[in-house]
């Protein structure tokens, strides 16, 4: 794992959860999982790529897509420019091709550091292209979700990204292309209520925040008491919404097995395609 995105400089970092001091080198070798409490710290998209795919196999696509400000929404341009400067990304999602344990996959990786991973036109387009690429090139699709939801600043256009990405998932279904979503911290609202939730298989990182409405809204809305782990990956697993909670260390192996078993039928077709 590169040290480019280390949370604090120097040889030590502090766990955001248990506040224990950790050796930076160890922390990075552990894929930013706290050695004491197991807290999974958020990754940048580059860290995610390094942690997940076969070394050197990730190839970014759709690099030319740029957000505009279709509604001339207050402060959107400024915020967007600031996010670009901060992250070096063009928008909150990066698309591409990669391999997991030798197997080709189409990929979309969201990065929460870019405007809370929110989904506007560009993110929606990249997720859609990742799904369509899976169909066109006969490979399973893997999406890493990390988002507060739809991007308010693009108004109804953002809402339509929910439908657009979901349409692409349905295309995958009807064409027999497996789609695996990984819920990382956080996976919320408009992203959760669209392509993320209709994946064939859903994995989640431990303690990731996963929910539809802000927890405050949900709890206000009803007399029913929310459990302590409300809107966590663990809560979702119990509620039947998630297939497994997988430690980051085991994610590559887990994904590899799934991609291999569910995508095996594509291989003969792939051979035909060339």
């Amino acid at each position: 794992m590169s040290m480019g995105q280390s949370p604090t400089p120097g040889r030590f970092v502090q766990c955001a959860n248990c506040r224990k001091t950790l050796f930076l080198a160890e922390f990075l070798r552990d894929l930013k999982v706290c050695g004491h409490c197991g807290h999974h710290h958020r990754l940048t998209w580059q860290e995610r790529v390094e942690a997940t795919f076969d070394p050197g196999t990730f190839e970014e696509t759709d690099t030319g897509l740029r957000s505009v400000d279709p509604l001339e929404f207050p402060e959107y341009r400024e915020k967007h420019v600031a996010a670009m400067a901060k992250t070096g990304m063009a928008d909150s999602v990066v698309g591409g091709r990669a391999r997991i344990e030798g197997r080709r996959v189409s990929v979309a990786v969201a990065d929460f550091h870019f405007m809370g991973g929110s989904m506007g036109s560009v993110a929606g387009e990249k997720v859609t292209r990742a799904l369509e690429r899976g169909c066109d090139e006969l490979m399973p699709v893997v999406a890493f979700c990390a988002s507060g939801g739809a991007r308010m600043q693009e108004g109804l256009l953002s809402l339509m990204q929910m439908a657009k990405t979901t349409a692409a998932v349905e295309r995958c279904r009807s064409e027999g292309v497996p789609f695996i979503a990984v819920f990382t911290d956080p996976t919320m609202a408009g992203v959760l209520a669209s392509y993320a939730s209709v994946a064939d298989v859903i994995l989640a990182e431990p303690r990731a925040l996963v929910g539809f409405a802000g927890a405050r809204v949900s709890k206000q809305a009803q007399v029913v008491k929310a459990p302590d782990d409300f809107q966590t990956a663990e809560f979702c697993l119990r509620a039947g919404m998630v297939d497994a909670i997988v430690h980051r260390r085991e994610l590559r192996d887990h994904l590899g097995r799934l991609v291999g078993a569910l995508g095996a039928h594509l291989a003969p077709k792939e051979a035909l395609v060339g």
Partner: protein
Amino acid sequence: MAKTWKEWMKPLLELEELIEKLRAAAAKETDPVEHERLEAKVHDFERRRDAVLNVMITRMGPWEEVLMARAEPRPYTLDYVDAMFTEFTELAGDRRVGDDKAVVGGPARLDERPVMVLGHQKGRNLQERTFRNFAMCKPEGYRKAIRLFEMAERFRMPVVTFVDTPAADPGVESESRGISEAIADSMRVMFSLTVPVVSVVIGEGGSGGAIGIAAANEVLMQEHAIYSVIPPEGCAAILWRDPAKGPQAAAALRLTARSAGELGLVDRVLPEPFGGAHRDPVEAADTVKRAVLESLAALDRMGPNEVKRHRYDRFRRMGVYETV
């Protein structure tokens, strides 16, 4: 600014109340002269009413559109179903956990033709509103919708949906039964259909709760309906930490029918009777009905796979970005 339709419409509603009183007095009045005087007064106030209404409606901004879309007397889904269709037979239940009263649906006839109708349903009074959960669907609502969509597919019935919800239900129970999955899956199933689907936004097109039943081949929107990724109050709370700045947020979000039309996100904006659909529900329903029939007629010219493809392509195009 006014916070509710009633508050905004107060001058008009007061005038109308006054007119009603004068009319009643005129009807009771036996003296012909006095009767005539009262009648004249009624006419006078009616003119004033029309003038006030004219000013109010022509000066409507995005926030007034929000208030209008939420107006209590606005026709709701079942009003349109009654007016536009015959033989509506409601079907209940998601075959899983319950029947969500926030959404109603079932087969009906549109000029003799069998169609599957479905829509969010608001309530007129507090009791009804509670019964309908303020038209905020729980997971079982979207799963009922899925059941009806799939039935429509099997029996080759076009689908017509009416959109009118502030949002999907955000409660703890909805969350624990997978409200997100339910919304997404409802959209997904809509994209799998090979029968035509037409959606009409008749009031509040509230974010995920709305799009969950609006993945249609054609989306029509009434002049005074709204369609938004987030309620303006919620947007204001996030942007400016002040929910009272809803009016500013309403403007920023471009949530009016006109904006949605300009952005190409709805196919047609349907004119309403002057002052809003509730001022002439029959005319309003007639306009919607004609528009739905026209949409279906266009979709009827396509084969089943073409219909499915058309829907995909419609949404595939959505999004504004540039390529460098």
